[in-house]
């Protein structure tokens, strides 16, 4: 474990009455550094909170915002639940998949884009919506998405999901 990661782990542990509470925040921190939760991060987390790597695996696998494999730099998550479906999310989804030439939970070959259909993002009054590296975009049409795509290509975000 790098000294920096160890220090961060200890700082997170100190926030809580019990060490294991720091597990998920620590994994989110590692994911921000490595772009996904690596096997190394699993072992580091086990050491930080005092449980086995197997237990960490089991816990990490429960949460949809923790990736266990590398994903594209632009993480595009489009809502697929009821209110967005009622306001045209399916057409948006079809457009995005065609445009990026990838499907649900796939990354583009050049490592730039990851696409996923997710459940309700709590933005139902501005449907359809999506998140791009956890940043909201609302009231989307295929044309509006295309404009965003150009902006993203010109200004790529920091890779992966920010931890804080």
């Amino acid at each position, binding site marked *: 474990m790098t000294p920096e990661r160890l220090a961060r782990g200890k700082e997170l542990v100190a926030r809580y009455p019990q060490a294991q509470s720091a597990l998920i925040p620590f994994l989110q921190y590692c994911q921000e550094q490595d772009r996904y939760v690596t096997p190394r991060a699993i072992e580091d987390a086990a050491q930080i909170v005092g449980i086995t790597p197997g237990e960490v695996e089991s816990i990490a696998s429960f949460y*949809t915002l923790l990736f266990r494999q590398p994903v594209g730099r632009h993480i595009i998550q489009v809502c697929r639940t009821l209110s967005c479906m009622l306001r045209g999310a399916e057409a948006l989804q079809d457009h995005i998949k065609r445009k990026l030439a990838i499907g649900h939970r796939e990354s583009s070959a050049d490592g730039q884009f990851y696409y996923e259909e997710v459940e309700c993002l709590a933005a*139902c009054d501005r449907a359809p919506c999506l998140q791009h590296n956890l940043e909201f975009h609302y009231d989307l049409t295929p044309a509006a998405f295309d404009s965003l795509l150009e902006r993203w290509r010109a200004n790529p975000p920091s890779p992966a999901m920010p931890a804080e």
Partner: protein
Amino acid sequence: MARFEPVLMHGIGELDLADIAVYERNGGFAGLRKALKEMTPEAVANEVSASNLRGRGGAGFPTGKKWSFLPKDGRSRYLVCNCDEAEPGTFKDRMLLERTPLQIIEGLVISAYAIGAKTAFIYIRGEFLGGFRIFKEALAAARERHYVGPKILGTDFSLDVVIHRGAGAYICGEETAQLESLEGKRGEPRLKPPFPAISGLYGMPTVVNNVETLGYVKHVIERGAQWFASIGPARSPGPKIMSVSGHVRKPGNYEIPLGISARELIEEYAGGLLPGRSLKAFQPGGASSAALFSEDLDAGIDFDSLGAKRTMLGSGGFVVMDDTACMVRCAQTLTRFFEHESCGQCTPCREGGQWVARMVARLEAGEGSEQDLRVLGVINNTITGTNLCPLGDSIMPFLGSVLARFPEEFAAHVALGGCPLRAPIAGAA
């Protein structure tokens, strides 16, 4: 009709309430001052009980009663603010988090004072990164001005607040799953009893309250239990933020006095249906709620009236579906949701939820059979009421209600080999 004067939503959209100076100038922390300087913790708790405030997260359990379950045995207790909003159709808590975080903080501190908690946690949904950042800044500003931290407002009451981000799991909105997740584990709900008040976070007495609920605590203290209790029906009083979405002209969050009709919410608040459309169905309280129909438009929006109609107020996630909406498609979307979000502990939810989702997906795709319809008609008995937590019980209500109300639509998907509302299917028998 005069619009109800917003309470929690007052100033949202006009004032920058995340700015502590603005918040202070607009009644900010008046409730906290009153609680800490003029009232004992018991008096605060009694006021909340007298108001008949019921939880605004979904379960609608009386808040004062929940607090009263804490044992008087001297053990430390924790307060957890549940900001893991993920009930489909609900977007009120994210709005409160992002637009009026200091009001949440105020309600949280008052509540912690009432129950004698020295540490409070706020569990913020992982997807709400923007709201988390806003809240973090607001908390720092509140600390700086001694509304949080040691010796609040110069009194003997001290409170630490820890912000914890989720990482993607609808089930972590269920209070015991949230505690498991806060403890750094899989978000798998616990069997109740024991209730969190007896054995909660780290096994200690704990109260979990929704964001909106804590916000109303502030107002109950400021304006009095009598004021709150006199709004709407006696056993389901007070204001409530309804998140209205789907086929309406003005989707949005609307703070209503409980007890108004569904018709009034749709037509007076949300601008009515889209042009040329007619109402087909509406879900009053999130994905777990059974649908109501055009004959139910005069139903009162409150916990008991909707309960009497065999649906629920729930989170207040109010979704409107018009005549262009296929009920099978809607049911498919929701059963897929519950299959995805099941934690997997209980067989009827895990397996039954999966099979229900498959059957409804088959029906929607035009590959369903009479057998599927028959099974869906009886499966309620094995899936509902047989699981450890309410998620399993949420799989069937909407599906069952639209199956009963629109059986011909489901039958048509079988007979036609596809959806009768979409373009004609080539080669259908």
